């Protein structure tokens, strides 16, 4: 066995692949071979390290030095200067460093280096190698479930942890599992909702690309808890690398006997299938997703019955988001009490955010529940780009709420934000600097909803059309005060009568934009004589 003195981690995710990561990887390997360093330097693939928009990113260990915007032409210099002579290539060093640990509010006694939960392995291990996941404690959760907890114990542990769904609705995960486990009907199913379609959100993709086994283990635990033998991962069709890595991971898990019949001689059998979505936003809504999975048009179903009693093919079904399921193995492995050490009492744990817009370092962040918006923007994302002033943020995706500067110190968690009529939603944070046009923002949100309305119900199908016509009129300088009133009126009817959350949520961006930027919006319409 060779003694490797340097590990070079190259981040292979959909973003870095587009920036040329594969070519950089090949150039590095070629260069290492050419310079006769093959036994000493190992190049390893890993998932996203969390930074976006910085080209190809590599990390050199043991220094833990990050290089950004690396090109194949840089390979010889990195190998010769850094890896051979020990002199870092200064011009490539990443200036805005992503934080590897969660941003902690002041709290004592817990290990800072263990702070990442969902993203603990992302950007650290090779997602295509099951051994690396196992080396990081992977599949210990399912082992504990089999030997110690048993199904009821898994549900209890999750209940005690206080985990709620991370897809946006924040429903108690244990309650969902409990309902499904008690619902009559056989077989039962676990569905992972990986149809990540909320604009500006790509947290699930980075989890899938960076640590696919964590999702597999999470789904196994869910299946074990509710008595399901089959799981489906309904994944956004554009997530090619996620699909590839998931399928590799599933194959490896089968090979190791972690999926299939009688897993680890526990008597529990479980297997997974990956199903690709076809790009409709509404299929992120769980019942529309189920319809789509059944091969039908993605229309939402009436609730009740909820999927936990009548889901896929009419059978009890648990639908959980990727991030929710990715929390599960860590909770089961480390225990509910450990998990409750993160976040707030009412809302334990962490939240993965994708932070985009006018910030210095956009990307992925995992922060404890209860972290303020200010800390997320200024501590993690490097503050506002080009030193401009913060104007506001659209939090929770297109179906989320605008927040103004007065909300910077609001604690971000599912419970607290409700009091401000805001939502965490999918965890997308779109930061706007002072130059952003709020009407333009509304315009793009409303156009998105018109495009993505499924057409099933009157309020959403026809309401989005009218809203778009009105906001376009306002943006074009032809709007009247009554037009703003119509925006509110129509979106309120949509909130009250739309068939599914898609149409119901559109009132939020409209009402919140008027709450924080009222003068600006009213300033854009013709003033009454």
């Amino acid at each position, binding site marked *: 066995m060779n003694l490797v003195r340097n590990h070079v981690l190259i981040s292979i995710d959909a973003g870095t692949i587009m920036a040329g990561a594969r070519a950089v990887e090949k150039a590095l390997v070629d260069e290492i071979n050419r310079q006769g360093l093959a036994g000493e330097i190992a190049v390893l693939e890993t998932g996203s390290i969390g930074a976006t928009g910085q080209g190809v990113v590599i990390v050199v260990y043991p220094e833990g030095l990050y290089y950004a915007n690396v090109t194949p032409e840089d390979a010889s210099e990195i190998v010769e200067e850094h890896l051979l002579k020990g002199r870092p290539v200064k011009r490539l060093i990443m200036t805005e460093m992503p934080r590897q640990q969660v941003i902690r509010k002041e709290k004592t006694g817990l290990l800072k280096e263990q702070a990442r939960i969902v993203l603990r392995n992302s950007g650290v291990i090779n997602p295509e190698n099951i051994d690396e996941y196992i080396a990081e404690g992977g599949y210990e959760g399912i082992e504990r479930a089999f030997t110690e907890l048993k199904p009821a114990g898994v549900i209890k542990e999750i209940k005690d942890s206080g985990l709620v769904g991370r897809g946006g609705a924040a429903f108690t995960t244990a309650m969902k599992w409990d309902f499904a486990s008690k619902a009559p009907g056989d077989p039962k199913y676990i569905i992972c909702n990986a149809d990540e379609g909320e604009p500006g959100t790509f947290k699930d993709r980075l989890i899938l690309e960076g640590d696919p086994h964590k999702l597999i283990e999470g789904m196994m635990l869910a299946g074990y808890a509710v008595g399901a033998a089959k799981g489906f991962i309904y994944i956004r069709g554009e997530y090619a690398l996620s699909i590839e890595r998931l399928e590799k991971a599933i194959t490896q898990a089968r090979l190791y006997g972690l999926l299939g019949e009688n897993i680890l001689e526990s008597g529990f059998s479980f297997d997974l299938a990956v199903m690709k979505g076809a790009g409709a936003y509404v299929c992120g809504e769980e019942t529309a997703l189920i319809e789509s999975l059944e091969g039908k048009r993605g229309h939402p179903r009436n609730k009740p019955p909820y999927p936990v009693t009548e889901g896929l093919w009419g059978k009890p079904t648990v639908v959980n988001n990727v991030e929710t399921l990715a929390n599960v193995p860590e909770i089961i492995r480390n225990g509910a009490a450990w998990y409750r050490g993160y976040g707030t009492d009412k809302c334990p744990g962490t939240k993965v955010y994708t932070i985009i817009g006018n910030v210095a370092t956009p990307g992925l962040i995992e922060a404890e529940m209860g972290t303020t918006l200010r800390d997320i923007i200024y501590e993690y994302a490097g503050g506002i780009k080009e030193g401009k002033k913060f104007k506001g943020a659209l939090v929770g995706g297109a179906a989320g709420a605008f927040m103004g500067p007065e909300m910077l110190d609001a604690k971000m968690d599912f419970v607290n934000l409700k009091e401000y009529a805001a939502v965490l939603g999918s965890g997308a944070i779109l930061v706007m600097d002072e130059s952003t046009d709020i009407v333009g923002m509304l315009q793009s949100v409303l156009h998105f909803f018109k*495009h993505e309305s499924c057409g099933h119900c009157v309020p959403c199908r026809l309401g*989005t059309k009218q809203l778009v016509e009105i906001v376009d009129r306002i943006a074009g300088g032809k709007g009247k005060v009554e037009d703003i009133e119509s925006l509110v009126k129509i979106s309120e009817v949509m909130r009250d009568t739309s068939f599914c959350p898609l149409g119901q949520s559109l009132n939020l961006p409209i009402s919140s934009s008027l709450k924080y930027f009222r003068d600006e919006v009213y300033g854009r319409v013709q003033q009454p004589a």
Partner: protein
Amino acid sequence: MIKATINNVEIEALEGTSILWAAKKAGFTIPTLCNHPDLKPGGQCGICVVEIEGIPGLKRACMTPVGEGFKVKTHTPRIMATRRQLVELILSNHDTDCLTCVKNNNCELQQLASIVGINVHDYSRSGERLPIDRSSVSIVRDPNKCILCGRCIQVCSNVQTVDALAVNHRGFDTVITTAFDAGLGNSVCINCGQCVVHCPVGALYEKSATEEVWEALHDPDKFVVVQEAPAVRVMLGEEFGMPTGSLVSGKMHAALRRLGFDAVLETNFTADLTIMEEGTELIDRLTSGRNLPLITSCSPGWIKFMETYFHDMIPHMSTAKSPQQMFGALAKTYYAEVKGIDPGKIVSVSIMPCTAKKFECQRPEMNASGYRDVDYVLTTREIGRMMREAGLDVKEMPDEPPDDILGDYTGAATIFGATGGVMEAAVRSAYRLVTGKELENVEIKPVRGLQGIKEAEIDIDGTRVKVAVAHSCGQARKLLNKVQDQITKEGKSEYQFIEVMACPGGCVGGGGQSWGSNMAKRARRGESLYEEDRSLPLRRSHENPSVLALYEKFLEKPNSEKAHKLLHTHYYKRSTVDGKIKPAS
């Protein structure tokens, strides 16, 4: 029982009852649009929203079961404002040319706009005009009127299992259309018209033939004969405000005569004739044991359905034409001969509760007389319109008999209009054909009524015949799957004779019935047909004197060579993609 209050009125309801029905019990009709009493609520329109104390937001009354202790409000200021907004939104994408719409005065959206008090609407008509689908010979589809309530799809897919219609595109661009947007005429549509009778607005209606019939009636060179289906006599009164199911046979004859038809004849006559032909066929099959069960062939929607989805069953089908087409073939041969009229001058019109009959009459093989056997088919709604235009009110008409020689009918013929009627009529005559004796109790109750599939065992002088009756193509599919399964596994089916009608309830529930129908009304009309049966002196088809005369003077005997040429037909295999005839392989 669940106790709740609706606008402070206390009610009790069975568990699972929707708030919509619970409110009806309390005397409140909550306005709806997409909801239909015979279909599962889809929740598209949102008009029926109500407030429930302690539950945030508004809930759809159609799909929310009333819960214990619910305090429901159905018309608060917030609800009323919301309903107005929703109706305004619907009108923003609907052609509001009500005065020239086929559904004027019968439109549920028009009524709703009036109920919720829309007198101005803020939103401009948006979206582009879409082409009207006139590709079908039976049904016209106007997407500019469509409000996407989905009733047509639900009845087409779930009740009929035809699956001709589906939702396409999404959001504001959503349309209901056929596969490949090819139009109903190039689809698996069986022309049953259940989409038409379930459409709340004017987006689906029959392809009208009233202009052509007016022209014929006013042409002095033409001899215009008319036949009326059994079910029409219990529907036509509704067109003139009479109670559902009013029996108006005599008034109908009088009104048609006054409208200018040269001879007012009867489909009921050929219904009796059908029994003679089909009954003889049944006896032959029972004797030979081949191709059992025998399956009836009166319903042209069912025929196209069978040709598309069950063409392996063609050998089991009765080759007897439907009563409409038997009439057509005889009008331009036997009738013309006896009456001394040039068959080329005869225009043959039929009044049907049906839209599929429009398709049937133009099938290329339907020309046994050397001419097109039936020239024009009018639905009950169309003849109602013509009578109103001519200033005729069926209510006010005297009772008149039909004309001879294709006018007499028995009670067995009139019950053809209700599901199970053909079966019952056939048994009445088959008994005689087999035993030479008359069946004393002619009423065969197990095959009556609106259960999905009805079964009975008939004892014909020691021979037990097991029969089954299906109405709606969905039920027919279920029954035929069972039969095919039995034949595959056991070599034969438990049934010897099967009646299928394409429409729920049989012809009294056809696609040509009056607007605003439901299963309860269909049932009422069926009962009226059984009343007429009871009231007639002759209740067995083989007793019809005109039918006996026809055999004696013209056809010789049932299933004779001449009868085969004029009264029997053949079937095709059709594609499940576009419903077209498949080339023989």
